């Protein structure tokens, strides 16, 4: 089965259709915005931390199926975890997506998140899968905006906004 066919399977399609923990979180203590300017994925992650644990988490935004499903499954797997455990998951997920962590080996904590391992064979889509984790990391560190391209915005606001282009 090809990498793409392997990726677009039921688990991921289901989370895309019915994202879990969807929506803005009331009384969030931390939040961050994630942007992938290459494909327009744009998500917001909200957290409520208590005693260094993720008490509640939510997300919303506009994105491709891989990004949305990744965010949805991320929220499920970090809810109730300690911050350092969430950070470990973020690191392991990133390494798996980049092909640096073998999902079939033991010693990692990814569990069901290994459904995303196929993304390593789709280099143009790796960022889509990682963006939610990137954004989570930013939220945990209260960095307002995560971007897969640094903070390079191809159309920085100036004259255009003034002129209006509705």
């Amino acid at each position, binding site marked *: 089965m090809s990498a*793409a066919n392997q990726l677009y399977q039921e688990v991921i*399609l289901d989370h895309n259709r019915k994202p879990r923990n969807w929506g803005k979180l009331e009384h969030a203590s931390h939040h961050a915005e994630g942007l992938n300017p290459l494909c327009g994925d744009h998500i917001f992650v909200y957290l409520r931390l208590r005693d260094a644990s993720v008490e509640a988490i939510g997300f919303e935004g506009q994105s491709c*199926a*891989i990004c949305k499903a990744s965010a949805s499954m991320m929220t499920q797997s970090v809810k109730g975890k300690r911050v350092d455990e969430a950070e470990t998951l973020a690191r392991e997920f990133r390494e798996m997506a980049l092909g640096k962590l073998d999902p079939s080996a033991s010693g990692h904590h990814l569990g069901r998140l290994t459904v995303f391992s196929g993304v390593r064979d789709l280099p143009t889509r790796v960022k889509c899968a990682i963006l939610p984790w990137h954004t989570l990391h930013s939220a945990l560190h209260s960095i307002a905006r995560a971007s897969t391209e640094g903070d390079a915005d191809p159309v*920085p606001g100036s*004259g255009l906004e*003034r*002129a209006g*282009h509705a």
Partner: protein
Amino acid sequence: MKSAVTTPRAGARADDLGFDVERVRQDFPILTLKVNDKPLVFLDNAASSQMPQQVIDRYVRYRSREHANIHRAVHYLSEVATREYEAVRAKVRALINAREEREIVYTSGTTESINLVMHGYGRKFIGADDEVILSVLEHHSNIVPWQMLAQESGAHLRVVPCNDAGELDIDAYRSLFNARTRFVAVGHVSNALGTVNPVKEMVAIAHAHGVPILLDGAQAAPHLQVDVQDLDCDFYAFSGHKMCGPTGVGILYGKAERLRAMQPFKGGGDMILSVTFDRTVYADIPQKFEAGTPPIAEVIGLGAAIDYLNGIGLDAIKAHEDELLRYATDRVGELSGVRIIGRARSKAAVLSFEVDGVHPHDVGTLLNEDGVAVRTGHHCAQPVMQRFGVPATARASFAFYNTLREIDVLVGAIRKVQKVFAG
């Protein structure tokens, strides 16, 4: 495959012009590739088109038998390289019907051509509270340079809006002119939607206000017969790699008197008459704008691409591409759950679309499974995406070597995407 209603009348006109797509395809070695075990269906020509063997051969011949630096030495190879390099100016002049060869400036591409005008013309003649008119359909390369100019000079950008079909609002354009308007920069053909703008009329309106105008022809030069004297534009910019030529080379056409009035963009060798530490006397146009060693092989490759396109015939190319676009618009348009974005009456070779409930990037990845290459994203035209309220689109863009059969493959692949996501 569906009803007879949408079946085209078998490319009548292109055929009449002696066009045979199967024969043409044999010139393009890359078209025999398989991707994911499927024949490559290359529908990303607006980003960069493919090269025929004739251009590749010309490039290799230069590299293996003719290379030396130009304009600098009296030896045999330098003379050959200089002659071949300069000969391309005449081909470009003829292609776009410029008055004189010195109105043809070699650049690295459309982006550099526009930046050259921004620096050479804009920084000299546009100041605080002056206005530059662009359109909402522009590629970022015809937005960002003007924005940079606005930031440093205090000038303002005014933007021509478009209607829901993706056609520019020419009345709004007319009403943007005032005593502060100094420049207009608009695309000839939109890369995101395919709209062919009424540029001849837009040039006339600008000139009626005494304002010069640049046309971004990156998407027009590969598809349309361009006549800069008939259009009467002041500047025209395009890229080699979108018209079967190499990357790294492009053209800026400018009316001689405009180019003369401009300041140079880059300083260096080859753009001077004399240099002392007190003073440099610049060379005449076009050399004034061609500092440093240029992409010689690429320019010569562009010349071969122009010869190739002329050999096929620009009218035959247009006829075949119009047929492809008509067929694709019918076939993709009849799929339920698919929305075509950009329904202008006058369009060229581009079909942007959305599949309900499926992000364009997922569409692109799954089409690739069937060997179909489309571009997904904002197409370096984020204001267009904002105008149509989408984060991105999938875009199929055609070249004369594409076939109706390939469009059938595209349509079948879109159906498969819908099936996957219907779950």
